[in-house]
């Protein structure tokens, strides 16, 4: 019975929630640089067969022990798949890309299918943020695949790692991929911040359980975690890997429709994410 009741209640609940969420969501869209809301058919009506040309690929990797460990689980799936779906919806609405909100997938870094795409998202998250040797622990095969992916022209976006301990872990992993390439801090004049939206400041998009947790116990714009964006450049100076440090675009996308999550940061997460995609497909 209980089960039955619940089943009946869910659609109604969903409807009610949608009504509540859609209002702030439309407000969110209206924030983007004065661009008009584009009235396009949403995903279910995109009935052309096959994958859209742009697919949001999330990388699955080996990681150290901890919460993300365990059979079939991993830190790679942080925010997955809501963030990917929400973000793709934004990509579809704001750009000319052939994308839709079901056009995402997660692939092992060593899967040869990786090379059928040119944009790769990797979440570096681990909690708590102070433990050493957590999160991704790229195997030599994974590091080699990532390196080859980028040298062929692929673009990698790393997201959601915080504080000094993560930074050190991040450096260890990066050196596995490119032992001889410099990590460059990208300032706001870099073309990557102007490929679609003009982003003049890197904001700290709040990360759940880091600077935000459903409005309880954390600080927004926490000065202990100054946000920055770093890149690894190819021989022609083009960014082939971008790393968002002390900021979490994934959470910004994931919580798009969650009212307590501050809208301003959602906007920034979309702007930066879209800029990365446009940059990657034009450089």
């Amino acid at each position: 019975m209980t089960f039955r009741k619940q089943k009946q209640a869910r659609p109604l609940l969903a409807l009610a929630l949608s009504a509540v969420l859609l209002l702030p969501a439309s407000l969110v869209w209206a924030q983007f640089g004065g661009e008009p809301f584009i009235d396009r058919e949403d995903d279910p009506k995109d009935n052309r067969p096959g994958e859209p040309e742009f697919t949001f690929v999330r990388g699955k990797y080996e990681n150290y022990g901890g919460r993300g460990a365990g059979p079939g689980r991993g830190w790679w799936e942080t925010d997955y798949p809501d963030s990917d779906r929400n973000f793709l919806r934004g990509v579809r609405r704001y750009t000319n890309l052939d994308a839709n909100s079901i056009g995402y997938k997660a692939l092992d870094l060593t899967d040869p299918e990786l090379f059928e795409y040119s944009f790769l998202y990797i979440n570096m998250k681990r909690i708590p943020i102070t433990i050493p040797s957590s999160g991704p622990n790229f195997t030599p095969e994974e590091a080699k695949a990532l390196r080859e992916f980028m040298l062929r022209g692929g673009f990698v976006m790393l997201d959601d790692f915080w504080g000094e301990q993560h930074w050190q872990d991040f450096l260890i992993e990066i050196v596995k991929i490119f032992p001889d390439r410099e990590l460059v801090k990208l300032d706001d004049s870099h073309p990557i911040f102007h490929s679609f939206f003009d982003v003049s400041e890197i904001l700290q998009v709040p990360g759940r359980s880091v600077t935000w947790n459903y409005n309880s116990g954390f600080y927004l714009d926490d000065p202990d975690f100054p946000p920055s964006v770093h890149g690894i450049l190819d021989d022609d100076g083009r960014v082939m890997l971008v790393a968002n440090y002390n900021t979490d675009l994934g959470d910004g996308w994931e919580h798009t429709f969650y009212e307590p999550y501050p809208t301003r940061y959602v906007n920034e997460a979309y702007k930066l994410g879209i800029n990365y995609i446009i940059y990657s497909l034009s450089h």
Partner: protein
Amino acid sequence: MSLIQEHYLQAIVDGNLTFGVSLGIAGLILGALLLVGIALFAYRKTTCPISRPWKAALVSLRAASLLLLGFLLLEPGVLVSEVTPQETYLAVLVDDSQSMSIRDQSNLPSRHEQGVELLFGRENVVGRLGENFQVRTYRFSDVAQRLAGPEVLSQDGEHSSLAVSMEQVTSELASFPLAGLVVVSDGADNGDIDPLQTARELAEKKIPIYSVAVGANEIQKDVNLLDVSAAKALLQDSIYRVQVNISQRGYAGKRVRLTIRSKGEPIAEQQIALPDDGKAKRYTLELSPKDEDILVYEISVDEQPGETITQNNKHRFFVDNRRKKPLDVLYVEGQPRNEYKFIRRAVKDDQSLRLATYLQTGPRKFLRQGIQSPQELSSGFPKQAEDLFAYEAVVLGNVDKTLFNEEQLQLLQDFVAKRGGGFLVVGGLNEAFIGTPLENLLPVEMAYESRLPSYLQGGPRRGDHPTGAEYAAQLTREGQYSPILRLDSQDSKNRELWAKMPALQGVYVSGRAKPGASVLIEHPSLKYQDSALPILTAQRYGAGRSMVLATASSWRWQMMMPSEDQSHERLWRQTLRWLASDSQQRLTLTMDRDTYNVGERVTVSAQLRDEEFEMDNNGLLWLNITDPEGQTEELPMDWQLEKDGTYTQSFTVKREGVYDLAVKVPSELDGELQTKSPLLVTPSRREFLNAGADEALMRRLAATTDGRFYNASNVHQLVDDVTFAPNAYSKMEVHSLWDEPLFLILLVLLVCLEWGARRLKGLS
């Protein structure tokens, strides 16, 4: 001393026999009978008896003696044509071109030495001719010059033009009575005018040619580098193919070394097997020049033992590898996608291409890349011809028709048809373009999706439906040999590399290729209208080219190949270069030949078009010439009344080396428009190509003009022939025959024989 002059005999044979005493036929017969009667009478009785045969013999001898005496008493003579000594002129022309230095066999004198011996040596032809004629001797190669003596002959003429030389000499001597031309040559003529044509003209003027041939018809041992073909100008990092034709005699199948040198240093070598005797074969060498300069190369085949001519074993050529203004390509893309990204990456290092891109990133949002100024493409797709025509090629990605107005679509058609630009669609044009000028432009028929068979309606997205599936690019025969799709110059290697290329994915379905279009890649399995779906199709359109790539997945050739692999880059560079490099230029410069020899006249022709690429007849053009020593000269160019937009100027090259030519159109409005070209002046090899003597030509020259042909065996007759051959200025003279030694000897012989016979038979 001869018994009778040869030309007398000829005159007798010709029936030119006359008598001082005329008896008529009857008188002659009666006289002869009388003399025979006298002989019979004389032997009517003999002092001792002799047999009848002996008697008959003695009577015959006596009669013969009497008849001969009678003949001589009739004052016989021959009618011969003869010149008045020193009143008639005779021109002697001696070939002094380089081919006369050839020694056809190592144990023989050179052609030049043979000629000198004939004219000035033992036979002393020139000296003897001088007894009767005013002899004018000339040396000739491309033109004729007076010859002071055999010591002046130098065999350095770089051309042999018998026609020009004979015309020149006859015209110089036109006001004199010219009895004929004595021409000493190997007959290896390489002039532009047929010498037989000149011979026919001389025949009409009754000027005979006495041709004297020297040299061997066929050179027995020679390797001959006939010609070299190579592009004159290069695009950056091109593989530069040099093709050379080689013929040979005496070394069939021998392996020899073919070398290309730059500044004396070998830079490419190949061992080749020589072709069969008398046959020519083509060999190809590849160069990848790095120096950005005008590069002069020498290609040579090693000198072979016993080779007759070594001057034809090498050849010089050049390539202009100076950095040029890159070809400007405009790429308009309707959406950010992999194909756009990877095309840009493929050509980023190609200095010969500039890709200016206009990417629609979102509704009313555009990203410009590769632009040269903030103004470029700032208001979208160019609206004016002068702006669009500044590009050499236009590429359209997945564009929406709303990006263009009708005028812009028409302008794009003019861009290809009139301006000669290249046009490429990556993917396909959507149905909205049907009925626009772009439909015309495409090399394939456009199709409405709704009218396609259902299996072709799925669209190009990646999936299991037929038009979204992966497939191997299938190169057509034309595609395999197209320079656009070459991954290696060797056919087998090319096929091998293509077999390794990753699959493409997705096809934009079109109708068939239009008549005249070439399908270079086709779908391996999908068909429409009984033809495989075209994937890459190209055609000429007006003055330009158009092409469609019916997939947007060529980027897979990059992402699915090792990062070091350059196939994707190579294919896109070749494609865009093919589209752009043949586009018309506003100002072009052409010359009548690739290389010149010192002293030759070069005609430079320039073609000028205005900003809309219409022929411009109102230009003020200057030709700037910088010679190999850096001396410059500037000459105005003349507009050619009969050819629109064409201006010409000529000058003579005086030094060996590389000349730099520039045509400039100074204009206050546009700044200066100019185009440049190098010009190579080399030593001539012409005399050593096809250098075998042409005896047949020499024979025909003589036969055409009623002259006579000579070689070493009969040249001694030349002086008499010339002296007594009829010509416009000779007169007929009767020469008595009675004092010819032949007759005296004959008479004495007859008398002695008769006397001897009588003694033998005891007659008194």
